[in-house]
């Protein structure tokens, strides 16, 4: 039903979404050396999906991001964070003391931050998408 309406919106959205996703990834992986990080990246990443859902409707979005996938991703993100922290416990360091994850202290820290931020990013984006979709679908069903 939306196919014929809002032609401009749909075209612009289709153009923008890849850019937004790309920007999200940039912010994500730039996290440990410049402004950026998992939180922001996650939100930007989710924004792309939300834009898609706004224009093409939640039903179509669900095809890309089915509920099982989103909830699994939420959990995976948190688990990634925690297992990174716990991994350093295995090296007899304190929780999240990820300098020990590699032979080189700085490299270990880089790795640790990268993993942690990745976890944060995954969780935040999937949570954001889940929240939006939950509202949108609820309204649709009544």
């Amino acid at each position, binding site marked *: 039903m939306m196919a014929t309406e809002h032609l401009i919106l749909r075209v612009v959205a289709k153009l923008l979404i890849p850019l937004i996703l790309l920007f999200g990834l940039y912010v994500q992986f730039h996290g440990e*050396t*410049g*402004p950026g990080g998992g*939180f*922001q990246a996650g939100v930007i990443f989710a924004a792309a999906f939300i834009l898609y859902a706004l224009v093409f409707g939640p039903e179509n979005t669900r095809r890309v991001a089915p509920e099982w996938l989103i909830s699994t991703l939420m959990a995976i993100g948190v688990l990634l964070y925690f297992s990174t922290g716990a991994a350093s416990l295995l090296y007899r360091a304190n929780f999240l003391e990820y300098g020990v994850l590699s032979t080189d202290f700085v490299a270990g820290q880089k790795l640790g931050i990268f993993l942690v931020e990745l976890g944060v990013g995954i969780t*935040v984006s999937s949570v954001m998408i889940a*929240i939006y979709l*939950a*509202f949108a679908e*609820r*309204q649709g069903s009544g």
Partner: protein
Amino acid sequence: MWILGTYNYWIFITLMMIGLYIVIVRGNLVKKIIGLNIFQSSVFLFFISVGKISDGTAPIILHDGGEAIYSNPLPHVLILTAIVVAVSTSALALSLIVRIHESYGTIQEDLIREAERAP
């Protein structure tokens, strides 16, 4: 001059009061939440502005190893966390409102209270 010099405080206080006013006075639950958001944002703004140093840069070690004036990063980090918390609060509040709407058919506080008294 000190009034202008501390303009961020004034903005903070004004926004805070606007937010609280909305929370207290408005009967519409969604508007209440918007008020709550304004209230929270005012606090966030305040702390960000306090952390800012003029001409400061992001607190990142420069490649040439030189010294640079940079803004205190800690408030940013804290407020980022607080924003996340605020977002989740809003989400939760909105979902509550959706469910209130479903069971009462209204989101006006006085109407809800009436519906409560009626049966």
